[in-house]
Each structure stands twice: as C-alpha cells, then as structure tokens.
C-alpha cells in the first residue's frame, strides 16, 4: 500500500568519487612523471643554466645509453666489467645472507646472543662502514675479494636485525601451543618462529640487496679493479658526464634484478602472506 499523502521519492543513489590524483592509472602516471622530469632536465641544459660538464643534455645521455648498451650487447669490455660487479654483488649478498642469518638466529633465539652479541653488533653498525674499505684492501688486495668483503660487511647488519625481529614475531598463544604440544626448542624454532619470521627476514634481505650494491661500487671506486665502479670513476675523471649517467643507469638494472629476485623469492616462500603492498613492488 502506498501512502497517497506522501509524494513519490526517487531512490537515494550517489557515488563516492576518488580525487583525480588517485584515479590516474599506473602507466599514465609513470609516463607523465618521466616526461615531466626529462622536459625540465632538457630545459635546464638547453637554456645553459647549468654547464654541460656538470649536467649533460638528455640527448647526449641517450646517445651514451645507446653506446653502452651496444657495447654490452656486443659483448665487449663493458660486459666483463658488469660481470665482475655482478659476481661481487652476488658473493657479497650470499655471504651477508649466511652470516646475517646465523647471527640473527643467535641474537633472536638465545639470551646469550641478545645480551652479549647484540650490543657489539649495534656498536659496529653505528660505525661508518665505508671507512673499513682501506682495511679490506690491505687485507685482501685490489682483487674482487676486498670489494666482496665491503659489500657483505654493509649488507650483513640489516639481515641480522630483521632475522632477530622475525624470531620474536610469533605471538604468545602460538608459543603456548607449541609448548603444550611438548615441542623441543629446535622444533619451535624451525616450525614456528622461522616461518613466522620469514616476512621480516625478506624485508631485511631487500634492504641488504640495496646495501650490497652500494658496498660493491664503493669498493670498486676506492680499490680499482675491473668492475663497473672502476669504469664510472674512469669516465668521471675524464669529465665524461653523459657516460657516467649511462653507466649508472645500466648499473641500476643490476640492483633491480637483485631486488626483484628477493621479491620473487618472498612471493614463493611466504605464499600465505598475500597482504597487498602499496605500489605492488614489495
């Protein structure tokens, strides 16, 4: 029965609208930002506001990008340099992961580690680690060894801290559950604390993957050798800024490859933790 005295009223239908800046699709947003930055860069160099020695034009940089790319594809000397740096980064990362994880378990699982080892680790971590580079060169020479050592040294600490934090992540009820099942300490570590801590450990590995790159390149700057870092230093000393830019861009591909290897491993091993991360890259 409709109430005759009441006028016909339309349904209350309305939409919630997102702000324009939140509605832009990813590829448009990325292209827009890229174009904007390159345009400003081009303007700044074209107008001669900044000397060409300090900042090359986008066109010059592109030219060198193509040259370096061609060199890499043709398998010339730059490939050897990139391969040397790749090996340095890979060894450094594996050593950092091994030592960092072991120390992290010692710190996170035992009171001895927490009470005795952790304070010293914090003390070393606060030191500027790059300052150790001359020592590593003195100990291990100008070959790849000293660069690996510096890279591993820088990348170890975030893994220690992340592993230890991960081992604390299991909550009280889960610990009680394992205790009530009569689980041994090793069982609790392997079947509860480590799996629970995996997301933390992977976060540490991601931070380490960035640090290991910085360590390897710093090592090559300071200790010479045949890596990409030495190429960059060489170009920089010749004031060949476009080449420096191009080399850094190709170097960043190595960093990205390592980072996304870790991300892919995390997706595979922590399959149950599908929480959406902003940007979809972590």
């Amino acid at each position: 029965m409709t109430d005759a005295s009441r006028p016909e009223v339309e349904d209350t239908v309305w939409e919630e609208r997102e702000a324009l800046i939140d509605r832009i699709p990813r590829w448009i947003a990325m292209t827009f930002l890229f174009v904007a930055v390159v345009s400003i860069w081009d303007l700044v160099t074209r107008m001669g506001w900044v000397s060409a020695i300090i900042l090359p034009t986008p066109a010059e940089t592109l030219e060198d990008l193509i040259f370096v790319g061609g060199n890499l594809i043709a398998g010339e000397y730059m490939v050897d340099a990139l391969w040397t740096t790749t090996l340095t980064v890979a060894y450094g990362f594996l050593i950092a992961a091994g030592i960092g994880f072991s120390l992290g378990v010692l710190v996170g699982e035992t009171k001895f580690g927490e009470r005795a080892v952790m304070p010293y680790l914090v003390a070393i971590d606060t030191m500027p680690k790059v300052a150790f580079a001359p020592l590593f060169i003195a100990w291990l020479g100008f070959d790849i060894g000293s660069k690996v050592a510096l890279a591993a040294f820088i990348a170890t600490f975030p893994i220690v801290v992340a592993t230890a934090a991960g081992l604390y992540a299991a909550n009280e009820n889960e610990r009680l559950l394992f205790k009530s099942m009569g689980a041994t300490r090793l069982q609790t570590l392997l079947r509860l604390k480590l799996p629970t801590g995996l997301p933390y450990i992977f976060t540490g590995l991601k931070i380490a993957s960035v640090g290991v790159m910085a360590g390897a390149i710093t090592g090559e700057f300071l200790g010479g050798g045949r890596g990409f870092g030495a190429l960059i230093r060489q170009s920089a000393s010749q004031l060949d800024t476009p080449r420096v830019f191009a080399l850094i861009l190709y170097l960043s591909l190595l960093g990205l490859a390592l980072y996304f290897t870790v991300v892919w491993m995390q997706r595979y091993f922590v399959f149950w933790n599908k929480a959406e991360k902003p940007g979809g890259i972590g």
Partner: protein
Amino acid sequence: MSKVEPLPREPQTTVARSLPVYEIERLSKTYARNNLTALSDVYLTIHKGEFVSVIGSSGCGKSTLLKIMAGLLPPTTGRVVLDGRPVLGPRPDIGMMFQQATLLPWKTTIENIVLPIEIREGRAAAKAAHVRAMDLLELVGLGEFPNVYPGELSGGMAQRASICRMLVADPAMLLLDEPFSALDEFTRDFMNMEFQRICMERGATAFLVTHSLEEAVILSDRIQVMKARPGRIVEDVRINLRRPRTLEMINTQEFGEIVAHIRELLGKEAHE
C-alpha cells in the same frame, strides 16, 4: 572440597560420580618475581565426562590455574594429578584451545589439525593421522575444507579447526582458555552449542576458563567461582539444567537465578 562454601541448592547428581580424571589439592602459586600470590589453596576434582568452568574477574588467577593444569607452569605447592600421574610438564593426553585459533598460516587445515602428532611422533605418524583428522573435520562440519589454508577460513571455522586439533590425539582432558571470546556474539552462541554436541558425542572431560557468565552456565556441569588477591575458589556452583542445553534455556527463570547468584558472588568482590 573443604574450602568450598555450602552449595546454593542440593545437587541432584545428574553427572555420574565416575572416576576422577583431574585432581588438584592444596595448590598454590606465588610468583617470586613480585611475590604475588596468584593462587591460594585450590582444591578441584574433575570427573570423567564432566564439564567444569572457572569464572572470575581478570587477574583472579584463572589463567594461572589453567596453565598449571596444562603443565605449562610449575605450581609452588600442592598436588596436580591427571589420570593418576602427576603433571610435570606438557602431556600428550591434554588437549588445549586458546582465545585465538592459532592455526599456522603456511599449513593447510588438515596439516594444522595433525600438528600435535607431527610434533610428538614425526611426519609419518602425522600423515597416518589424516584419516582421523578427516573424521574430526566431518564432526565439526568442515568436511569440505581439509586442504584450504587458514587465511581463507572465517573466525568461527578457524576455531572449529582448532577444536579438531585439540581432539586429534584423543586427550583425556580438554583445557580451554576463553576459546570463543574473540568471536562475535551470534557465532559464539552457535559455537557453544556445537561444542556441547561434540563433548557429549565424545564423552569429553573439559575445563573451561571464561569471563562470560552465560557461556559458563550453558556449557557447564559445575562452575568454580574465583576471586582475586589471593586467587581462590570461593564457590563450586552445580548447574542442574538438563542436557542437551539449548539457547532458549537462557531465558528461563532457573538460568536467570543461577546467573544472578554468581553475579552476586562476583559483584561482592568488586565492592570489597
């Protein structure tokens, strides 16, 4: 039961006075850390097939009592005996359930259920227990979800899976620490009825810690009312409502009287 005040009404002995499963005598617990007496002179006997609850305000020592009964915490004085053997640590004949389902997210539902067996007897025994786990899943109405990961289960379903995990080793004693308190009220009512059905079907002996009066009354044969400072049992209330209990019983006068009586006991403390 020397320390217990007179019962409010004559027990009608609906529960058969069968074998005692769990016996606690002159139990006390003092934390050395802050010299706090969490439990003082607790006596409690739980018979086979009995459902006993303990209720009290937070900090009255009910969780401490449960942990001692589970062998997770050593007592300061007293005798704690399950099935004729003293409880000197966690035991396979004790099944536990916690406030959260605490299912491991990287294991499927059925793998979670056989976890106690995997921990105690290894992977092969756990695999062999899958048949039993499947029967339990059917019992709680999760027969279609053995290979689902816990992340895909609702809160109520997850707690039902954790009931299965508690039952999988066929324990002599079930210890429950506010198992349904994290669920919404309707799911909780439903789970209480489900849990009653499961306990009756299996003749389970259970001990429940709760802070919900209605939950305690609807599930229990006896309710231990606890008070704090020091933690002690002040009254052993026998619930003579017939079984199976139904949610409609909550509206009966008898139910109301029991709730009122316990509420008065607990309320007195608040004004002390």
